[in-house]
C-alpha cells in the first residue's frame, strides 16, 4: 500500500468514526435548534402576523423539553442542521487541497463560484435595479410590487442611468459591442475622479501634514518626553529615508546612497510588520474553521456553553 492509499484509508476511517459516533449519540451532533417567535402577535390583522425562527442554544431546547415535552416554541431545525453538515463537509473539501488537488476540492470550488455569482446577481437586482433605478422611475409600481415603505417621486433624471445600462449590455451584441465603450468610459471617468480627490486629500495632503511633527515633545507637565520625541524622530527620518529611496533622479551613491539604504530598511521593517499581521489573520481564519468543526459540527468542545446539560 503506497502513501497515497494510506492517507485515504486514514481519512475514510476517520469519516466512518465521525458518522458512527454521530448516529450512535443521544443527540445528533451538528443539530441546530430554533426558537419560534411570533411577529406582530398583538396585531388584530392576522395577515400581518407570521412566525420567525431564530437560532436557539441546544441547552434551551433541552430545558424547554424537560419542562413540557409538548412545547413548540423550541424546535429542531432540519434545514439548518443540513446547513451545518454541508458547511462542515465543504470546509473539509477545501482543506483537502492541502494534500493534493482532487475532485472534492473542485466541487467545492465550483459551488462557491456559482453560488457567489448568483448571490451577487440577486443582491444587485434587489439593492440597485429595484430601489435605485425602478424605484425612481416608476415608484408607485415598485411600492405596490416590492417595497411598501418606498416614498419617492418620479425622477426623470434616472432615465440616463437606464440608457447607459442598456448601452453597457450591448457588449453582448456581436456587432454593437463598441456602444458599451461609452458607458464604460463614464464609469472609469467618474470612479477615477472620486478616487483621485479621496487620495489627494486623505493620503497625500493629510499625510504630509501628519509628518510635520515636533521632534522635541513635552509631556503634560512640560518636561521633555524622551520616548515621544524618539517616536517623532523615527517617523520623520523614516519618511525622509523612504522618499529618498524612491528618488531616482540622483544616483544612489555617497550620502544619498546611505540614506536610500536606510529607506530600504524602513521598507523591510514595514513588510515584516505586514507579514506578521497577515500570518495572524490567516491563523485566525484557520482557527475559526477548526472551532466550527469541533464545536458546531462534531460537538467535541463547547466553549460557549451552548450545550450544558446535554
Amino acid at each position, binding site marked *: 500500500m503506497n502513501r497515497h492509499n494510506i492517507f485515504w484509508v486514514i481519512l475514510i476511517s476517520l469519516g466512518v468514526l465521525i458518522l458512527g459516533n454521530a448516529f450512535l449519540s443521544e443527540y445528533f451532533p451538528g443539530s441546530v435548534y430554533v426558537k419560534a417567535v411570533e411577529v406582530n402577535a398583538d396585531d388584530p390583522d392576522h395577515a400581518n402576523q407570521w412566525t420567525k425562527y431564530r437560532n436557539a442554544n441546544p441547552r434551551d431546547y433541552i430545558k424547554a423539553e424537560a419542562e413540557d415535552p409538548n412545547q413548540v416554541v423550541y424546535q429542531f431545525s432540519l434545514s439548518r442542521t443540513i446547513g451545518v453538515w454541508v458547511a462542515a463537509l465543504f470546509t473539509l473539501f477545501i482543506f483537502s487541497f492541502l494534500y493534493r488537488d482532487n475532485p472534492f476540492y473542485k466541487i467545492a470550488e465550483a459551488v462557491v463560484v456559482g453560488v457567489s455569482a448568483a448571490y451577487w446577481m440577486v443582491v444587485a437586482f434587489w439593492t440597485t435595479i429595484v430601489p435605485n433605478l425602478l424605484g425612481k422611475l416608476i415608484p408607485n409600481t415598485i411600492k405596490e410590487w416590492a417595497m411598501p415603505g418606498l416614498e419617492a417621486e418620479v425622477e426623470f433624471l434616472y432615465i440616463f442611468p437606464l440608457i447607459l445600462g442598456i448601452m453597457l449590455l450591448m457588449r453582448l451584441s456581436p456587432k454593437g459591442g463598441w456602444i458599451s465603450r461609452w458607458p464604460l468610459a463614464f464609469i472609469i471617468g467618474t470612479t477615477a475622479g472620486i478616487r483621485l480627490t479621496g487620495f489627494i486629500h486623505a493620503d497625500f495632503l493629510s499625510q504630509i501634514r501628519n509628518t510635520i511633527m515636533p521632534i522635541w515633545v513635552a509631556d503634560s507637565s512640560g518636561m521633555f518626553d524622551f520616548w515621544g520625541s524618539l517616536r517623532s524622530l523615527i517617523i520623520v527620518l523614516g519618511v525622509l529615508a523612504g522618499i529618498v529611496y524612491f528618488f531616482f533622479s540622483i544616483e544612489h551613491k555617497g550620502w544619498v546612497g546611505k540614506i536610500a539604504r536606510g529607506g530600504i530598511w524602513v521598507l523591510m521593517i514595514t513588510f515584516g510588520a505586514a507579514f506578521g*499581521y497577515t500570518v495572524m489573520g490567516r491563523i485566525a481564519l484557520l482557527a475559526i474553521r477548526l*472551532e466550527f468543526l469541533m464545536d458546531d459540527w462534531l460537538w467535541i468542545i463547547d466553549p460557549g456553553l451552548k450545550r450544558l446539560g446535554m
Partner: protein
Amino acid sequence: MIQFFSKLDKRWIFLLMFLSVIIPIYIIGKTGLTFPEVPSVLAENTFNAIDELNEGDPILLAFDFDPASEGELGPMATSFTLHACKKKLKIYFIALWPVGPQMIDDNIEKVIMADFPHMVYGKDFVNLGFKPGNEGVIKVIVTDLRELYTTDDKGTAINDIPMMESINSIQDFELIANVSAGYPGTKEWVQYASTPYPDKIKLVGGCTGVQAPLLYPYIPDQLPGLLGAIKGAAEYEALVINKYGGEDPDPKYLEARRRMGPQLVAHIFIIILIIIANIVYFSERREAARK
C-alpha cells in the same frame, strides 16, 4: 539534518500547523481558559471613543465584512455592539458589503435580542442594510443620507422610523465605528468621511490583519482608534468585559481572547520555521560557495 529540512514535504508543515492550531482550541474549548490581555493605546483609544459618549447619542456601526473574515472580525463586531448597548446609545447599523446585512442580523440576534430584549427596533437600534456603490455611498451620505436610504433593511420608510428623525447625514452621528475586511472599508471611511470633515466626523475602526499596516499612517489624526486583527479585538474585548461584563461574563463575549490561544502556539511554530528556513538557506548558500 540540513538536507532533511531542505527536502521536507511541505504537507508535513501543513499538518504541524493544523495541530498547533487545533490542540489549543481543544484545550481552551474544554477548560474555558483565556489569556490575559494588556490593552494597547489604540485599543484604549477605541474603547474611550465609545465610552465617552452619553446615553442616547447616535453611533453608526458600519459592518463591512463577510463570513470569510468573520473569524477575525466577528468578535470585535460583537464587542462594539455590546459596548454600545451597555452605554445605551442609539445604534444605526449599515453595510457596504452585500453580505454585511447578514452579519448585522447575526449580531443583533446574538447581542441585542439575547441580552437586551428591552431595546426596541426603530427607537433604540435600526438596520439600514446594504447599499451598493462602495465609496460612492459614503460620498453621498456624508452630506445627505436620505438620498440613498429611503427605507431600512426591512423596507420600512425612513420617515416612519422614530430614531431617524434627527439624522440627515452621517455628520449627525457622534461616532462611526467601522469593522472592515477590505474594500470598501476603513480606508474609504477615512478618505471620504473623517478626512473631509475632521471636526464633525469621528471614526474608529477594526480591521483584518492584512489591512492594519495600511491604516496605521492615518493614526491618530484621521483615525483615532484602530483594532488590528484578532489581537486588537482581544484587547478591546478585555476592556469592555472588564468594565461591563460582570463577574461571570457570557462566554460568547470572550471569543477573541479564546482565539489568542491558537495564535500563541501557531506564532511560536512560525517563528521556529523561519529560523530553520534561514539556517537551511544560509547553509546551502555557503555549501554552494564552497563548491
